[in-house]
């Protein structure tokens, strides 16, 4: 079960999205559809808040990479905040910590 919320402000310079719960192979299709809808053409930076994201698998990571590609094509980026330690580890193992902009935990 996962949930995602977008800070709904068309004027804002970046798209702020909060991820919650578990993103796995069974929730992936829904996550992909919702995320890509929020990201649109990729004309804005994306900020992902992940303090309540408890689980993400490689399927979910792949979808994040897909979103990254879209914004990169417009010289924008994906910023990831408040990643839990167990998930940060997956970004590290897969090298994605050098592809996304992971904000350090405070």
């Amino acid at each position, binding site marked *: 079960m996962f949930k995602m919320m977008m800070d709904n402000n068309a004027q804002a310079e970046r798209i702020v999205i909060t991820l919650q719960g*578990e993103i*796995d*192979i*069974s929730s*992936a299709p829904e996550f992909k559809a919702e995320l890509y809808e929020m990201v649109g053409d990729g004309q804005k930076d994306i900020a992902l808040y992940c303090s309540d994201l408890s*689980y993400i*698998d*490689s*399927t979910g*990571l*792949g979808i994040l990479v897909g979103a990254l590609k879209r914004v990169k094509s417009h010289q924008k980026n994906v910023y990831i905040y408040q990643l839990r*330690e*167990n998930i940060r*580890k*997956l970004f590290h*193992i*897969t090298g994605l910590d050098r592809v996304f902009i992971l904000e350090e935990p405070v």
Partner: protein
Amino acid sequence: MNRAYDEIKIHLPQKADYVSLIRLSVSGIASKLGFDIDTIEDIKVAVSEVCNRIISIKPDDGEFNYDITFHLFETGFKAMFTVNNALRRQLFEGESGEFAKAIISSLMDSFEITCNGDCVITMVKNLGD
């Protein structure tokens, strides 16, 4: 590793729907064995990644079932995934397959795939490292 003192086997459909059930069961097993919370998370991740790869096989003749066997040791545990008539190539093919392999090898103490008609994927995690 000594002899397993117990064995638990789960036979289930090759469906995305059941991976969270496996995570639930595996966290039950791992916490019973005395793994700490972080390691339980890692085990859930590694086991799920293998399930994902098995689910990603699209056989011509519809879905199939597969087996996960857990061997419990005083020193840790071993999980074996048995997929009938699979090909190694199908299992960890492509970029996602490589990512999955990297994640599993990095989180577990050992990880191997033996294909010989059936494929058996084996991973081991020891207590206290």
